[in-house]
Each structure stands twice: as structure tokens, then as C-alpha cells.
């Protein structure tokens, strides 16, 4: 933190290379975040999804063994389906990394426990977020903003918790940020444009959220191309041709759907040698030809458009290549995957005293949930950072007020739009609302940057005032106490709730007790059961039958594999078959606790996990 306070930097929509110092800082942040996640992960339980991904990763890694020993067999569809069919509702980039990491660090080298080996790639991906937040924040708003964005991200308890998991929500947030960063840097270098396409391919191979990215980034690319082609008619003509190519291909695909008789027929006739493939190849080749032609006329216009072509071409190609399950039946299996998420079922979710079971969901849900879960000392600068950006944009629209403010740059608009995109998507009343806040993590990285901007301009203003009186005053004299006051409450809250991240609530909610009184979801995903496993290990009789409510069979097995649950105890699926029941307090599952009363003939638990008084996991033991 050598120059933590700088005047906010004003830039148009152009990238800027990171300085050597910024690169080193980003690297240090990555290492720090990775080390923090690794050193604390052992306490974090296995969420329902995570154990499924462990199992999937293990199966996928078996395919790589087969690939080594019998490559010809490995490439057959039957071998691929046998290994890759499991959990094919998600692409496999992360699960493959989990599996290979497990294969190397646990199975081969024996360096670490089972779960840690699976989780390492997730830490590596999550650790990218602070590093990239710093790079982008620093470039747009100065180092102070970059530092604040980087440090604050993992001090949001739910974000830290998710960063510990071998899941996809933090990785896709990291990938989203990486794509935007590459896109932004692409405006200074064609290579970054290609990188943007590669990053986008990896992003959609991480989780389906990233499929929305082209809709967010294309307007910026086109606007940039239009802007820099002004006064260069040859370039503008070529840029229009480029857009025309994409529009024509879109129209052709639309006509194909119509002429073939609808989406089902379109899908059925999408073969290797078909108009469908021809259009895509035409798009790829046409893009290359047009951009090559454009490059001779205007490099800036070319740079503006390269990311679009790279995303359009490299995205689908990488998506196809990364997922062996698609290799023999790309169209049908991709269509199934997309349909699965387009028609995802709804889970019960407790929100402000109401158990939501299906749409329409409240329009304000995402905003309220964010306000009640992000530490308030971090949420407040996000709000002022975003409001200030929007305010400046609005004031810039009128000639009367334009002089009052500095018009937001296109780069700032890029950050602002990405800050709200995921939030707006999930806010749609028909979109499934479950999983806490994880589905809009991609927005949180950008909100963190805007929070950094808000803090940075305040620090700068204070420093200017102080400097006028004492010119020798160090910027650190301002930033250190300001950072401390803003970050310490979040750190205290994080430490307090760790490792039970899905129970975290902010000061605005009144912490966990306040949220319980407000009628918010107490917890979810079953991982808090770790809070009662030591009691079960100590008190269960040999071979006891244990009903870990909400904990799936994979997780039960993983707790035993990782030495967190005694190997002699056996899982059962009902309180009536159990000697010990660990009930997970969910509003929608109250019946399960009352069935335990019925089965055991008692309403008195023997122990439980109570966080700040809120019941999370309640344990009953069958009376002897």
C-alpha cells in the first residue's frame, strides 16, 4: 500500500495495463486469499451440492485414468457416458479440476485429506476475485479503491463461505470478472480480445450464469466501435458490415427455426453437416475476414470488435471441447442442459415471515436479501458508490446540471452495468429464488469496486483537507483508520459466524437473532451439521443409526472419509429408524422435528448448534 490515496482517475472506455507494482499486489492478494481459504477450510461442512460434485469429480477423474490406459476406449460414447453422465446438469470445468486435483494431491501424492484436494481449485478460482478487483478497481479509481474492493470481498461472510466450497458460484463470479477485465483490456490490445473469448469460453464452462455476458458486453463493444470510427468512414463501413454479418446469421438461424417447424425440429436437424453448422462456420470465417480487413483501416475499431468475435466463436468451441459428454451428441445434450436451467424447479424459501414455494417472487427480494446479509459497513459504500455513479450519469444528461459533476466514463458504466446485471436477472419474479445470495455473486465483485470508489474519494477528500494544514501528512494516516473502521465490523461478524456461512446476517438485519425475528431463512445446504458431529462422535453408541436430516448420503460418506464422523455409525433416512437425529432447522421442515418427537417420545433435545441463540441443528437421542 505505497500510494493508497490517489485522486480518482478519469478514463474513457479504454483499457490500461497494470503496472508492475499492481501486478505484484494482485499476486500477493491472490496468494493471501488462497492461503486464507486453504487454512480455514477444514471447519467448513460439505454442502448438499458439494458432495455431489465430489462424487462427480471422482467419476470424471476415473475417465482420465482410462484415457491414459486405454485412449481408444475412453473416446467411445459409452465410456464417456459412463463417466460423464453423472451430474450433467452442470458443465464440467470446475468438477474436472476438482477431480484432477484430488487425483494428484490425494490419490497420487497423499498430501492432503480428501475434501481439501477437491477444494483446492475452488480456492484458486475464488482467490482471483480479490486480485482482479484490485487490478480493475485500481485502474479505474486508484489504488485505495482497488485495495478496498479486494479486501472487502472476502470479508462478506457468505462470500467467504462459498469461496471455501468445491462449487461453482464463486468460480463463476471470478470468471465473470475476468471476462470483463479482459474485455476492458481488449480496448488497448487485440490479444486481450482473444483472451476475452477464451475467458468467456471458460466462464460458460464454469456455470450457466455466464451465458448472459454477451448481452451485457456487446453494447459496450458496439458503442466503442461506433465512437472510434467517427470520422473514419472506411472503418465505420467495415464495422457496420461486421454487425451486419452477425445480424444476418441471427436472421438465418431464426428463419431456419421457422422453416424447419420449430425449435424441436431445429434441434433434431442440427447435425455436423447441416445449415446450422454452416452458419456458425460462416460466422467464424466471416468474422476473421472482416476483422482482418478492418485492421488495415482502423486498429481501435478492430480492437473494439475482436472480443465480440472471440466470444461468439471461441465460447461455443471451448464449451464443446471442455465437456466430453457433449462430444458425441453436442446438440441434444446441450439442449437438455439449457432446458434444465430454463425450467429449474423451485425450493421452499423463508423470507420475511413467508414461506415462498413458487413464483411470482417479490421484486425487491434480491435487494433486501443483499442488504440483510452483506455487512452493513460494506453494504453502505456499495450503495453510495452505485448511487453516486447513477447520480453523475443522470446529472450529466441535462445541460443545466452537466457542469456540476464529472460525467461517468464508459469504463465506469461497464462496472455499473455489471454491478446490476446479475441482480436484475435474479430479481425477475419468475426466476427461482433459493440458495441465499450466491446466484448474484457476479454483481458483488463490481459493487465492491464501486464501494472502493466511494471510500477512495472520501479518503482523498480528507487527505486534501489535512494536507492543506500539514503537507507532510501521509495518505496512510487517512486510509488505515478508515479501512479499519469499515472492515473490522465485517471481520468480527465473519469470525463470529464462521464456518456457518449460510446463517450470516448483517447488522442491518440485527444479526442472526434479528433475521430470525424478521422471518428469514435460518440456514440451508446442510453443512452446519459439523457443529454437532463432535457430540455425535462422543455420545453415539457403537454402530449407532444416525439420521442427519438434509445431509445426503454422499455428504455422510464424506464426513466419515474425512475423519469428521465416526466410521462405525450408520446413516438412516427416518427418525423412526434412528438412534440419534440431527434435525436442520428449516421453516419448511418443521414436520421432521415433530416426527422425531413422535419417534423418540420426547420433545427435549440433547444438544444442538445454536448460533447467537438461533437454532440451526437440533439433536435428539432415542431414550434408552
Amino acid at each position, binding site marked *: 500500500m505505497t500510494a493508497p490515496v490517489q485522486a480518482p482517475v478519469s478514463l474513457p472506455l479504454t483499457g490500461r495495463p497494470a503496472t508492475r507494482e499492481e501486478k505484484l499486489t494482485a499476486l500477493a492478494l491472490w496468494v493471501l486469499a488462497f492461503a486464507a481459504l486453504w487454512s480455514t477450510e477444514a471447519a467448513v461442512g460439505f454442502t448438499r451440492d458439494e458432495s455431489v460434485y465430489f462424487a462427480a469429480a471422482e467419476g470424471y477423474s476415473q475417465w482420465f485414468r482410462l484415457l491414459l490406459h486405454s485412449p481408444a476406449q475412453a473416446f467411445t460414447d459409452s465410456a464417456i457416458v459412463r463417466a460423464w453422465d453423472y451430474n450433467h446438469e452442470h458443465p464440467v470445468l470446475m468438477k474436472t479440476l476438482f477431480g484432477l486435483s484430488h487425483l494428484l494431491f490425494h490419490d497420487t501424492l497423499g498430501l492432503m485429506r480428501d475434501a481439501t484436494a477437491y477444494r483446492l481449485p475452488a480456492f484458486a478460482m475464488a482467490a482471483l476475485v480479490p486480485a482482479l478487483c484490485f487490478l480493475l478497481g485500481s485502474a479505474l479509481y486508484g489504488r485505495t479503491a482497488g485495495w478496498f474492493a479486494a479486501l472487502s470481498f472476502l470479508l462478506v461472510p457468505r462470500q467467504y463461505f462459498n469461496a471455501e466450497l468445491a462449487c461453482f458460484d464463486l468460480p463463476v463470479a471470478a470468471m465473470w470478472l475476468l471476462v470483463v477485465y479482459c474485455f476492458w483490456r481488449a480496448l488497448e490490445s487485440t490479444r486481450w480480445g482473444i483472451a476475452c473469448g477464451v475467458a468467456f469460453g471458460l466462464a460458460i464452462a464454469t456455470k450457466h450464469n455466464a451465458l448472459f455476458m454477451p448481452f451485457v458486453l456487446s453494447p459496450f463493444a458496439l458503442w466503442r466501435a461506433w465512437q472510434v470510427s467517427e470520422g473514419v468512414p472506411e472503418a465505420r463501413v467495415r464495422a457496420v458490415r461486421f454487425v451486419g454479418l452477425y445480424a444476418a446469421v441471427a436472421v438465418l438461424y431464426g428463419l431456419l427455426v421457422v422453416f424447419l417447424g420449430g425449435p424441436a425440429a431445429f434441434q433434431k436437424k442440427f447435425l455436423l453437416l447441416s445449415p446450422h453448422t454452416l452458419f456458425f462456420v460462416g460466422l467464424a470465417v466471416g468474422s476473421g475476414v472482416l476483422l482482418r480487413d478492418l485492421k488495415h483501416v482502423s486498429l481501435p475499431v478492430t480492437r473494439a470488435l475482436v472480443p465480440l468475435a472471440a466470444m461468439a466463436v471461441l465460447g461455443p468451441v471451448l464449451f464443446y471441447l471442455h465437456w466430453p459428454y457433449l462430444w458425441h451428441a453436442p446438440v441434444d445434450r446441450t439442449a437438455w442442459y439449457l432446458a434444465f436451467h430454463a425450467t429449474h424447479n423451485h425450493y421452499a424459501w423463508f423470507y420475511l415471515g413467508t414461506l415462498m414455494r413458487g413464483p411470482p417472487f417479490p421484486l425487491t427480494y434480491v435487494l433486501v436479501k443483499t442488504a440483510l446479509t452483506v455487512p*452493513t459497513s460494506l453494504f453502505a459504500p456499495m450503495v453510495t458508490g452505485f448511487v453516486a455513479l447513477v447520480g453523475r450519469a443522470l446529472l450529466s444528461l441535462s445541460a443545466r446540471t452537466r457542469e456540476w459533476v464529472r460525467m461517468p466514463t464508459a469504463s465506469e458504466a461497464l462496472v455499473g452495468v455489471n454491478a446490476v446485471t446479475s441482480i436484475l436477472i435474479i430479481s425477475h419474479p419468475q426466476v427461482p429464488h433459493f440458495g441465499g445470495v450466491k446466484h448474484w455473486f457476479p454483481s458483488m465483485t463490481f459493487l465492491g469496486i464501486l464501494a472502493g470508489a466511494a471510500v477512495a474519494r472520501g479518503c482523498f477528500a480528507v487527505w486534501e483537507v489535512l494536507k492543506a494544514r500539514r503537507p507532510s501528512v501521509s495518505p496512510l494516516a487517512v486510509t488505515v483508520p478508515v479501512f479499519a*473502521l469499515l472492515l473490522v465490523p465485517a471481520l468480527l461478524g465473519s469470525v463470529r459466524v464462521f464456518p456457518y456461512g449460510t446463517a450470516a446476517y448483517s447488522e442491518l438485519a440485527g444479526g442472526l*437473532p434479528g433475521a430470525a*425475528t424478521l422471518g428469514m431463512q435460518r440456514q440451508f445446504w446442510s453443512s452446519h451439521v459439523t457443529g454437532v458431529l463432535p457430540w455425535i462422535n462422543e455420545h453415539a453408541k457403537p454402530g449407532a443409526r444416525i439420521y442427519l436430516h438434509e445431509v445426503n448420503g454422499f455428504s455422510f460418506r464424506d464426513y466419515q472419509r474425512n475423519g469428521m464422523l465416526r466410521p462405525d455409525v450408520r446413516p438412516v433416512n427416518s427418525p423412526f429408524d434412528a438412534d440419534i437425529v440431527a434435525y436442520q432447522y428449516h421453516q419448511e421442515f418443521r414436520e421432521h422435528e415433530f416426527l422425531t418427537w*413422535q419417534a423418540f417420545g*420426547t420433545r427435549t*433435545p440433547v444438544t*444442538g448448534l445454536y448460533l447467537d441463540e438461533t437454532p440451526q441443528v437440533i439433536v435428539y437421542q432415542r431414550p434408552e
Partner: protein
Amino acid sequence: MPSPKALRALPLVELGALLLVALWCLVFQLRLPGRLPTDADERAVADVLARDARPGDAVLLFPWWTERARLFVPPSVPVYGWLESDGADLGAHPRIWVLGQPELPRSDVGAFDAAFLPGRKALNPEARMGPLSLRLYENGRYRPRHWVASEAVSAARVYLEQPDGSRRDCPFDGKVHRCPGPPHLYVAPEWHEILYEPRHCLWMHAPGGAQRLVAEFANVPSGMGLRLEGGIIFEFAHPKDPRLSTSYLGVDDAATGERLLNVPIPPGREGVQKAEVVLPPGPPRTVKVWVQADNAESRQVCLDVMALEPAVGVRP
């Protein structure tokens, strides 16, 4: 136009506001541990209850979710706390101990009092054990019970009854009255959830079609209220699927066939449904408690019927 000075001051104002918020957050985080009870506080409450609670007393939690107390309260004293329990009558209990945590964030004592106090009178001053508060109330909503179906079920005669009056018996095996047919066709007192509320009630799953599942009880007292309380349990009450059918819960006079109580529960109606009739004075009756639903799918009924006096009210 705002002055340049004012514009320059905006970031200072913004940061000042952010720091005030952060300061408040810091105070909140530092104060929170002190607002939570220790095990010693809970044991002190348990000691009072073990010493002073009478048979028939109950504990009501405030806020409703502070269930850690269950670990400590003597098992002989039932503990109540569910969403909306603040306003519950708890009509089986003449006295209620309110175990509160008024210092917890967002604990709204005023809202609790507004729901709880009507018909109740404090019998002693509030005791404090750390952040826990304990106070005993006379429950004016108490209704003395002279007969409860779920407590008399072992003596009931249970059968499946066709519209033409023909019956198939559901013999009592010492625990449940088990009917011919699928395994869920039986009658027994069980714990179930009806819209988050724990109910110890008679499991009486509708058999489907026109036939009724009937539990026939003799010696039901007259000259007081006969009350039916029941509902569809768990998540089965919520769906409004048109394939589901209305469940009918009722009580008939066995001798005359008179319909004494009738509660229809259409798909989507959640919560405990209640109906009451005042029986004229006379000799004890035999009543038929029954359920029926054309389509038995997801019609998991739990109910109870009781003969009650009016609420006792509070003594001045």
C-alpha cells in the same frame, strides 16, 4: 448551481456517513455477545421452573424461535414457540410462563404484549436471569377440558364406512387402529405440523372415494362446547392442484345421525381449521369423528375433538 465548495464537501459528507454507519456496526458487533444468555442463565430459569411450575403449566418463548431453552426446561413443562405463537390461546394451560429475551436485536416487546396479553394477567413480577426474563401469567384463555378425542382414542371404535352404512373395522393393536388397505390408513395420536404449529392430534388420513374413516367415541359429555380442530399437515396443505380434492372433517351424533360439526378443507387452505358447537345439557353422547376426501392424495389429516368449558377469563 451548487458552489464548488459544496461539491467538494460531498465526498467528505459521504465518508462521514459511512464511518458513522461503520461505528454503529462496530458497536453492534461488540455488544451482541452481552445480549445473549449463558448456560448459567438458562439453568437459573430451569431451577425456578423446577421449583415453582405446577402440573398444567407451560412455557411460551419470546421471541418465538428462542428454542435453546428446550435443552434446559424440565421435560415435564411443555415449551411452546412457533411462528405466530405469540397470539396462541394455549387453552390447555391455566398458567403460562413467558420466557423472554427482550434484549435480542429486533425483539419487539410491544408487539408481543399486544398479541399475548389480552386475556392474561401477570401473577408475579418479572424475574431476570442475565438477559433472560421470566414471568408467570394467569391464562384467561384457558378452557377446562372434560374430554379429548386424542386422549380417549384407545377406547374408540374405528372403521371405514361406505355411504350405504356398511363398515369395515379397523382393529386396535394396542397402539393404533389399523384399517384394511394402504399402510397410512390408521388412527392414532401423533405429533404433526400444521402450518408450523406442533399438534398432538389424531392421524386420520382420508381413505379416498365416498367412504369415510370414522372414529366413534362414547361418553362424550354434553352441556358444553364440542370443538373440532384439525388440518392438513406439513407441505401437503399448500398445493392448489386441481387434481386434489377438498377434505371434509366432521363430527356426527351417532344416535341421531345429526351433523354436529363440519369443516371442509379445500386444496391450498393451510393452518388449523376450527369449528365448535355448544351441546345442550343431557346425558353423555356417542359421536362419530370422521374424514372423507374423494381423492385421498395429499390429504393427510390430523385432527382433534374436545369437550370444553368456556374460557375462564382472568380474575380481577
